[in-house]
């Protein structure tokens, strides 16, 4: 495993319901990422289909592995780089159960997937109406290090990030479809999740407008000490290639020994009190 890896933060606007157009965009940008020396190309939450789908989601969800993932596998194989993207995942066992899923594909094929655990269902969000939540935090050992996957609203729940950090994630990838009104929250929380876990955090958000909902972009790579190492434009599509160095984790973890200082007994209390809320 190499210490330094290059990430391409592919901050696209998805064409709503047009998978083919989105796949072409993903293919084009993955090739650009490869040409610029990137090891990993990251696309936003639901980048395959767009985010505001309502009942049309039932026509768009696919199994994983499935047709789209096979195409992304061919793309990863051809370019030799890793790809993370978001899509609605249809259960293998039912025909109407869907998860909001982040997919990690490498040059040798599908590495793993993460089903979003926290589904926002408030304000303009209606995810619990359509999605079954995930139950498993996801960390995958890859040639690019241990990568943990999270999605958007998960960022409000430090326990997900803590869990995947404790499972070994050194790079946490958070794909997102966050509307502009919430920008301030995400700017704070993404930095906090990186800092409190002393891990790299790559946040890749949609841009564009869907049904009047504007996504704010602002994708970023955050260092284990909470510094923004690279940042995309607000509101517009952008493509950012940036580098991270795992060697910096040692310095960060000694300077901010938050993991060393964890108090496991508090987690029992956390469970107890949250059940009593």
């Amino acid at each position, binding site marked *: 495993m190499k210490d330094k890896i290059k990430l391409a933060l592919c901050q696209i606007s998805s064409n*709503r*319901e047009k998978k083919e157009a989105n796949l072409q965009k993903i293919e084009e940008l993955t090739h650009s990422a490869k040409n610029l020396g990137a090891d990993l190309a990251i696309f936003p939450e639901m980048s395959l289909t767009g985010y*505001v*789908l*309502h*009942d*049309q989601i039932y026509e768009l969800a696919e199994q994983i592995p499935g047709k789209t993932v096979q195409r992304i596998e061919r793309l990863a194989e051809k370019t030799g780089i890793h790809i993370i993207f978001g899509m609605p995942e249809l259960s293998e066992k039912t025909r109407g159960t869907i998860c909001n899923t982040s997919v990690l594909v490498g040059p040798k094929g599908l590495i793993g997937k993460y089903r979003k655990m926290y589904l926002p269902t408030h304000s303009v969000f*209606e995810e619990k109406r359509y999605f079954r939540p995930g139950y498993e935090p996801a960390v995958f050992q890859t040639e690019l290090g241990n990568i943990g996957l999270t999605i958007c609203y998960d960022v409000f729940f430090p326990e997900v990030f803590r869990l995947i950090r404790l499972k070994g994630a050194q790079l946490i990838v958070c794909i997102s479809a966050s509307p*502009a009104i919430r920008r301030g929250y995400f700017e704070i929380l993404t930095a906090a999740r990186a800092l409190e876990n002393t891990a790299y955090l790559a946040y890749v958000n949609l841009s*564009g*407008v*869907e*049904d*009047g909902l*504007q996504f704010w972009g602002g994708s970023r790579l955050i260092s284990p000490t909470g510094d923004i190492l690279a940042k995309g434009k607000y*509101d517009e599509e952008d493509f950012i290639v940036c580098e991270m160095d795992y060697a910096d984790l040692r310095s960060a973890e000694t300077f901010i020994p938050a993991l060393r200082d964890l108090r496991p007994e508090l987690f029992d209390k956390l469970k107890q009190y949250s059940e009593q809320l």
Partner: protein
Amino acid sequence: MKLTPAELDMDFSTAEKRICRFIKEYVENAGAQGIVLGLSGGVDSALAAGLSSKAIGGKNVLALMLPEKETVKQKDIEDAQTVADQFNLQPQICDMTKVLEGFYESIAVFDPTDRLCKGNIKARTRMIFLYYYANKQNRIVCGTSDKSETMMGYFTKWGDAASDISPIIDLYKTQVRNLAIHLGIPQELALKPSTPALWPNQLAESELEIKYETLDLILFGLERFMEPKEIAIQLGLDSIVVDRVKRRWLSNEHKRRMPLPPKLGFRTVGNDFRLPRHTY
């Protein structure tokens, strides 16, 4: 939360940019040739027109001035013309008087003393003019409703509220005024007292019995789930005033929704038939 006018401050450059992008993308995705809107000489339509012009270019924005003999004011026509000149809009005057008189004569139960029912005919007739031009010239009808009036139900159902997009509907009136000033609309016009012009000398604040500066803070508090009692204390108002605003806001929800259907089918239009808005 402290309910002060500062709560209604916003980054007007960002708001302008976002609204312009919203308008531009909608018009493009719909494959429309442009926008048509009613330009009254008031601040709401001036702002919607200015933003539309910045989004898609004034030459693509048809601004209909729709006077009728009972409510027409030369000052309003002049103000509308000022806005049309400022944003290079395509202005056109359509006098509605004859059409309205046709309605008055044709409705068997027409009551000229009932100014609200009569005034609503005017608002709905404006809508018919706008949609005629929209259909004929492949334009999008741009609504000019603001958040204060919409929350209060202070509009005509299927009249001024009827449109394809509502670019300023998430801005309270005081925010509309400030964004208008930010856009360079003359201050005198931006701060001019609002009127729906349904009958002569009608004034919004007199009818609503409250100043927009106060109303907007009450509505902002309600939007943020504040208790009416707390809003009243913070604003130094009698709680009856806040309760009245809240009642009016809630009782007018029927004006802001599609017609209510009885639930009979598997999925029901306007109820649980949830589909993306396809202009694509």
